[in-house]
């Protein structure tokens, strides 16, 4: 018996290029930016910003371009402007390391404050930023619930329907006859979803990696970020690195 994947995973495309899924009955939009949008709760979620990663390398002698924080915030601002969320959730590893906040340029600190001013901002703590930010506005939490969905940094193995997480920086390598591409992606089996990293300098981990096993009840699909749309790609079209 064959099942049409669009029914099995309850996926539908959106005119904006994103893909709708339903998690525990909650409609969520996987955006081509890599953000997740919970429409009814007007909540925007992004994972793994890794702000000030460039300066973290610079402080250790590798002078990477200092534009990563501004770039990531710029994309976040565009999402906020397009959707006008009531709540913004940063799903952990928002800062690359403990000193990142001190290195933040005043201009970028102001941009973060402006993002928090118009809405509720929640910092989920991650492994790179295990403590709440010291100077930035917003609440900090290990985990929050929104419409019954569980938002936390790291996905836990075992069945956690309704879990929304990041941490793993999922990335898909897609093979077709014309060649291969490697892109950031969402991973979902219709029960839980793992968000791609949003930060400009955040790397990617291939979703065929061991780290993803034990998280999904059935073969997940990758929602791969294209230029202006998200492509739903089945497990069989995904290659290891």
């Amino acid at each position: 018996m064959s099942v049409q994947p669009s029914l099995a995973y309850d996926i539908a495309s959106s005119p904006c290029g994103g893909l709708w899924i339903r998690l525990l009955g909650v409609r969520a939009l996987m955006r081509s930016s890599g953000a997740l949008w919970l429409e009814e709760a007007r909540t925007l979620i992004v994972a793994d910003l890794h702000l000030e990663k460039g300066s973290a390398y610079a402080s250790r002698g590798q002078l990477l371009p200092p534009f990563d924080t501004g770039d990531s915030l710029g994309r976040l601002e565009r999402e906020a402007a397009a959707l006008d969320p009531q709540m913004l959730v940063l799903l952990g590893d928002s800062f690359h390391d403990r000193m990142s906040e001190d290195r933040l340029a005043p201009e970028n600190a102001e941009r973060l404050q402006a993002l928090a001013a118009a809405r509720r901002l929640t910092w989920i703590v991650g492994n790179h930023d295990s403590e709440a930010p010291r100077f930035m506005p917003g609440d900090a939490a290990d985990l929050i619930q929104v419409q019954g969905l569980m938002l936390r940094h790291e996905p836990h193995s075992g069945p956690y329907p309704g879990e929304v997480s990041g941490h793993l920086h999922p990335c898909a390598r897609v093979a077709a006859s014309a060649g291969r591409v490697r892109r950031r992606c969402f991973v979902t089996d219709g029960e839980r979803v793992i968000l791609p990293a949003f930060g400009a300098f955040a790397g990617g981990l291939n979703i065929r990696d061991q780290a993803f096993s034990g998280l999904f009840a059935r073969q997940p699909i990758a929602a791969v970020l294209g230029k202006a749309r998200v492509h739903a790609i089945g497990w069989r079209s995904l290659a290891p690195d």
Partner: protein
Amino acid sequence: MIEAKDAPLLPAAFASWFAGRGWTPRSHQLAMIAKARQGRHALLIAPTGGGKTLAGFLPSLVDLAERAPQDSSPGLHTLYISPLKALAVDIERNLAAPIADMGLGISAESRTGDTGLARRQRQRVRPPDMLITTPEQLTLLCAWPGARVYFESLACVIVDEIHAIHASKRGDLLALDLARLQQFSPKLRRVGLSATVDDPDVIRNWLAPGSLDDIDLVRGPSGAAPIVEVLLSEGRVPWSGHTAQHAMAEVYDVIRRSRTALVFVNTRFQAEFAFQELWRLNEDNLPIALHHGSLAAEQRRKVEAAMARGELRAVVATSTLDLGVDWGDVDLVIQLASPKGASRMVQRIGRANHRMDEPSRALFVPANRFEMLECQAAREAIAENRLDGDPARTGALDVLAQHVMGCACSEPFDLLEFYNEVSTAAPYRNLTWEDFEAIVDLVSTGGYALRVYDRFRRIVVGEDGRWRARNAEVAQRHRLNAGAIVSPATLNVRVAGRRGVPGRKIGEVEEGYLEMLEPGDTFVFAGQVWKLVGVTNLDVLVSAAADRDPKMPSWGGSKFALSTFLAKRVRELMYDQARWEVLPKDVREWLQAQADHSVIPAESEMLLETFPRGRRHFMVCYPFEGRLAHTTLAMLLTRRLERAGAAPLGFVCNDYALAVWALKPLDGLDFDALFHEDMLGDDLEDWLAESFMMKRAFKGCAIIAGLIERRFPGQPQKSGRQITFSTDLIYDVLRRHQPDHLLLRCAREDAATGLIDVARLGQLLTRVRGRIRHAALDHLSPFAVPILLEIGKERSPGGAGEMILAEAESDLIAEALA
């Protein structure tokens, strides 16, 4: 003639050493001693086997032998730079004999990346009289604190195989290091040793501390002309392909009749294939070995040692054996598939029979019909001693950045003094002050418009106004990352052990080598058939397979572009019917058929054919400018055809031709407009900015400039998994926020020269302006067959990312609805 001042050219001890071995000093060896006595810089040009190395050393040995006893340990006297580690060690060995025989009491030691720590430390404290090393080691020596004292007594620097290094980033860095050495020791004498080149002045200029007149030219004897034959295969010459499979039995037969043969190919794939084929035919069990850059170093050393002992009858090799240790026993060089350039070929032929008075023998084995033309053209060029050489280049700025950092690690420098020093290095003679300052800023702060890294400066100005490394840690990190060679990231090929644990290492492959293979596919590597088990982190896991018909991943043709010079000769040969006699019958018939059905263009023209085939319309043109330039041209043409509404669907390129196909007829186009040079403007920039070539070039530049480190990123994490922080991300961010950053400019220049050959394309477009010979045909021509046969063998060009995603998605739907 040469005037001897107070001493005879050759001291008595040396003369009797020569006589004792039954040798007579050659005139160019004496000339080199004379130059030394006159204190002149010198460039020696001599063919392989001309006693070139000895000619380089002799003056230093004489000088050291004649020095006053109280000066017996004044520090380093002669520095010898070899482009190859293996060569440095070999030369150390060869020098030991005359030094010991004559009892000269001179210390000569090699220093390479493989030299043990204890020896290296001792060399630093107590330098030998002569140090034999590589450009990379010299760069490191120059970045030491105390480099000035170490080199202040240096009398002579010898650069060996200078032709193979001057026109590269390694050459840029070496030129800068020579300028530094000259500063440390103003009386330093420069000596260059080069194989035969068409224009010695290019190398003289590179070597010169001021202008090329500073360098005296010494020419060795020209040696016997090589005997080059082209295999006019008894079987028919294939229409296309790169393997020369049709001729393997004949090649095997020739090997059987030779003492020792070197079989050169252009790619590793060809090497694996030829090795496999030869062993399939090897009924006599001849010792035939394989040598290429992917094999484990240990395995390569074994092959080299067996070769040196004369135990092998043939070695199948890529360019890894172009330079290297002398093997007197080689009596034949076989070139499988086209030589691509006359100079490289002469170098390779020189590997056979290192005795000058006997001619070297070589056999060219063309793999297809166009290659037959190319081989004949190369044979004629070599017979006329007309060689293509690398033109001079402008020094790369990323290399300069590394040099600035290295010098700051060594000792504080004054900006203006340092600029003047750098400007004496030939590749940087036209360096502007603005670029120099920008580079110093890049080294210090990264050179970003956003000035936020002031506290992370890598070099700082002291109170004395001089620049220095910020601290010892920064300097140490620099030393770990020095050098101008950036090799692509490599994966280890390992036998998969139980439960998929990585086992014995067989060799290394570059990323992308296995691009076309899926787990379960079989392929040939290191002369055996393997099955791909999977790829984990930095390991490619394989298991032995007995497959008789392994999959051969993309041949990729040659990585060398057909030289401009040779391309022109191929066009001339093709146009001149009187010269077709040298070609075998089937190739002559093919040319005749082309003349009958289409057109054979004049040397100055470019043929462009259009014809329908199936439901597609083809445009095939034949510029003969090499795959790189053709690929770039095809990329730009398809953009333009798209704008013109011709709906191009795809293209394919090889060294001789390119084909574009479309849904609509292409014969009504204005070809002069289509091929107008203005395509090198916005069309090129738009395409290039997005291309993977730019990203690859950027990574190289960022590593050389020291902005990122060699081991960046991709170290497996503690958990064993690897989050790849690709330099592509850095490129994208930098391009979005500071598109005029100096490193992007460097990357663009690298991509334009190395990866897409824009200069060559520019020449091509100029050459064919008003000279496009259009033939509108009703079906494909004989010339078009080879290129059309390549369709489907190649993956589609980069930039097709979105298409790939869309295709994979439709696969999913098809699969679901099945």
